């Protein structure tokens, strides 16, 4: 992929993710055109915009699910454009999906176990060998999984099938599973969609705690009140383009943004 | 030159048979979204029923009528009743595939049990032969080509000119559109099963007569070639099936002539595999096909 103009690998200090000139199309439609923005370390960067703005597509482009036609993505200075999804994940970027994407046929604990970063004991060779080779490390992972469950107050559902849970609980399982990998960057695709306000607030608190502990997040979200509470800075997209990036206050003063999104028919 | 002519004529004859069955198969998939892997055994069943009713030397037109009627009925039973029951229960893709495979096992081996693994002679009233540019063609083969053309025109008129046809096209694109056509989705689906069954029956009977014989595995063997035509052209698209039938008919005939007769069917099957690997939506499908074939 060709890098856009001025795409120095490192970018500004504290930049974790640098997206430059990304573009892609589906059929005849250009879903994303010339998307450029950065995500700084230790922030919850919001990604907002009206429906069809291309927000989820950008997440797919970063995570490798969709191949860009042009542009580049750099993570911690390294180019990751065009890598396949599992390769991107191995760099330390974990994403969640718009529809809560859990392993329905496995219990919550098993879901969390799969979330851990790839380890030696999960190979075919290890499976054919003695238990001892992997059981200790698995015990450690189990302990971490139970800790995360406790932190979210969800020990009760540890042994429930993930597929049998409510929508909101499944989102939480997906989030907890992502945390098992201790990612450097978390890409959240509408984590609060369809979640009741009380639960949404509690998830928001968890996210703030994680940010305070040093995790970086890029969050697509529609609920502007939540965005205002959680995200700084915020990237605004419309019709496949990035309009602006800044704090909510700056954006609310930005005419282009107001016209496209926050003004008249914008806001939800 | 005679070789080319021979490939051309017999290629069109094969294409005619493939088109009749292929359009039925693909139309039913387009409307009901069910990949009916029992289609081949239904082909055989129609031949057996027709043979059972009218004996081994029969009038072509009677045979086709009986075939169409029995095909329509069996298809409705299998598709709308049995498969439909599983669908209403919420069965998914692979579950339904297994259901249709189970049905095909039951039908094919029931036929084999009833009649034994024998091959039956099956002819229409003695055909006369013609010579076209040095190639000998029988009148029944020409009739098959004629029937196929008529059937394609009829399907075309049905789809373009009738309310039911519109409902079928709407359902194939997006089920929620069906009601706005004034026909209920259930009725549209039932009509699709009936129509594809009728075409299946006609195809089966003509296949049996064309080969001059049939056995309990005739339909299943032919089904894969037929599916190849449907998939190549774009599954769910009747015009695609016609195109696919033409291509496969000619290519497989050429393979038989140039390599060896046993490669006639293998060539078609290899085309099917190639399409499934390289471009599963087929030739005529748009880039983003309506029915998600690529998971």
């Amino acid at each position: 992929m060709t890098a856009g103009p001025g795409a120095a690998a490192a970018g500004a200090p504290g930049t974790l993710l640098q997206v430059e000139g990304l573009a892609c199309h589906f059929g005849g439609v250009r879903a994303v055109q010339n998307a450029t923005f950065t995500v700084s370390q230790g922030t919850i960067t919001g990604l907002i915009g009206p429906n069809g703005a291309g927000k989820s597509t950008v997440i797919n482009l970063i995570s490798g699910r969709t191949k860009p036609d042009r542009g580049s993505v750099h993570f911690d200075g390294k180019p990751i454009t065009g890598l396949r999804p599992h390769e991107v994940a191995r760099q330390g970027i974990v994403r969640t999906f718009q529809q809560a994407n859990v392993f329905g046929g496995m219990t919550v604990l098993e879901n969390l176990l799969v979330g851990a970063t790839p380890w030696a004991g999960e190979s075919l060779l290890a499976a054919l060998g003695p238990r001892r080779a992997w059981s200790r490390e698995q015990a450690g992972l189990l302990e971490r999984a139970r800790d995360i469950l406790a932190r979210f107050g969800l020990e009760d559902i540890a042994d429930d099938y993930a597929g049998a849970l409510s929508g909101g609980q499944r989102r939480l399982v997906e989030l907890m599973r992502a945390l098992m990998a201790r990612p450097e960057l978390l890409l959240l695709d509408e984590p609060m969609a369809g979640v009741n306000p009380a639960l949404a607030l509690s998830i928001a608190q968890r996210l703030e705690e994680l940010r305070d502990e040093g995790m970086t997040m890029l969050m697509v979200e529609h609920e502007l009140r939540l965005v205002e509470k959680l995200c700084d800075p915020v990237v605004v997209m419309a019709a496949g383009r990035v309009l602006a990036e800044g704090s909510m206050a700056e954006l609310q003063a930005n005419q282009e943004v107001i016209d496209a999104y926050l003004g008249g028919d914008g806001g939800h | 030159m005679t070789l080319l002519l021979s490939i051309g004529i017999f290629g069109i004859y094969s294409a005619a048979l493939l088109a009749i069955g292929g359009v039925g198969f693909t139309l039913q998939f387009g409307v009901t979204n069910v990949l009916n892997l029992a289609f081949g055994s239904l082909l055989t069943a129609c031949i057996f029923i027709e043979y059972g009713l009218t004996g081994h030397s029969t009038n072509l037109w009677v045979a086709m009528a009986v075939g169409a009627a029995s095909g329509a009925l069996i298809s409705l039973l299998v598709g709308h009743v049995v498969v439909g029951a599983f669908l209403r229960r919420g069965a998914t893709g692979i579950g339904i595939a297994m259901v249709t495979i189970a049905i095909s096992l039951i039908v094919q081996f029931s036929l084999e049990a009833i009649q034994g693994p024998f091959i039956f002679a099956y002819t229409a009233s003695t055909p006369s032969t013609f010579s076209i540019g040095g190639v000998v063609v029988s009148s029944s083969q020409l009739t098959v080509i004629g029937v196929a053309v008529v059937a394609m025109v009829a399907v075309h008129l049905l789809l373009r000119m009738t309310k039911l046809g519109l409902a079928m096209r709407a359902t194939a694109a997006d089920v929620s559109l069906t009601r706005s056509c004034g026909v209920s989705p259930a009725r549209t689906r039932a009509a699709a099963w009936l129509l594809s069954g009728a075409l299946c029956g006609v195809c089966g009977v003509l296949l049996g007569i064309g080969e001059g014989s049939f056995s309990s595995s005739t339909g299943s063997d032919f089904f894969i070639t037929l599916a190849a035509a449907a998939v190549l052209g774009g599954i769910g698209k009747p015009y695609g099936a016609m195109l696919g039938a033409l291509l496969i008919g000619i290519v497989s005939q050429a393979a038989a002539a140039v390599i060896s007769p046993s490669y006639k069917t293998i060539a078609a099957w290899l085309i099917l595999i190639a399409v499934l690997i390289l471009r599963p939506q087929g030739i005529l499908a748009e880039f983003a096909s309506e029915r998600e074939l690529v998971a």
Partner: protein
Amino acid sequence: MVYYLSGLAILLGINLIAIWGLDLHFGLTGINSFAYIVFQAVGGYAAALTALKPPAAYGSFETYVGGFNLPFPLPLVAAAAAGALIAVPIGLIAMRRLRADYQAMAMLVLSLIATGLANAQTKLVNGPAGLALIPQPFAGVFTLSRDGYNWIFLGLTAVCCVLAWWVARGISRSPYGRLLRAVRDSESAVSALGRNPNALRMSVLITGGALAGLSGGLLVEYVTAWGPSSWLYPETFLFLTALIVGGRGNLAGGALGAFLVPILIVEATRHLPAFGYPGLIDSLDWVAIGAILLAFLWFRPKGLLPERKRVFRPAGGGPGAARPRAGLAGGRVESP
């Protein structure tokens, strides 16, 4: 009678290995491995071609490649290896991201192409007539009666079964097995967590394929003959029905299915008083299998012994504690 029962036990063992292999593909990983019989076929041919002498040694009444006349256990090793290797081209098609029923159709077509090629290419494996006079392991070593040899072969089969059991069980309860089940549920989530779903699928296709190949090798060495009519496409559905009936995703279910379907139904009906023409009972067997498959898909798709929930011993229990938590009846307790 004893000879009959020992023969039945051998067939049960061979089917066990095959069905456990299919469970790895279909039950655990969710691959619609509907060309499974081809894995077994290839294994059978590999064993045959390795064990047979060159065609000339038999007066050239058959034509085939190979004929290395290698002794035990090499034909069986070749069989497993062949099953593993054929997984690669079959995997190319299995991993093409197609809708499930479409993929099933692709697999069926593969199966038919394999049969068509074996029939057409007579120089390869003697075409439709098939291979015969395949040497058996230990044949010349002991001078045994027919009954006695069966016991030796039963012992060999039992050893292979234990091997298959060890492989299948190891995979099933390991972190690797968990990844396979994850691929079954959501390939996209597996990718998002840093694992390559295609690599996982290929590895299990190869492993299950090796088991299928081994079962083919054993079968061929037992019946000493192998031709395309021994491995037609419906045979895959014999194994599949066994899995659906017995239960997927667990060894006990596979074993139960292996006993009920290929053995009880098929073998038992062999002993009904012969009625009708020869082969009628075989046809009726297939009708029965189709009907049973349909019935179970309707009434009990999870099978008689469904896959059980995996539950871990609660923290603080220590390695010695083994009591399952109350209220988790039916769960399978695993050590952390």
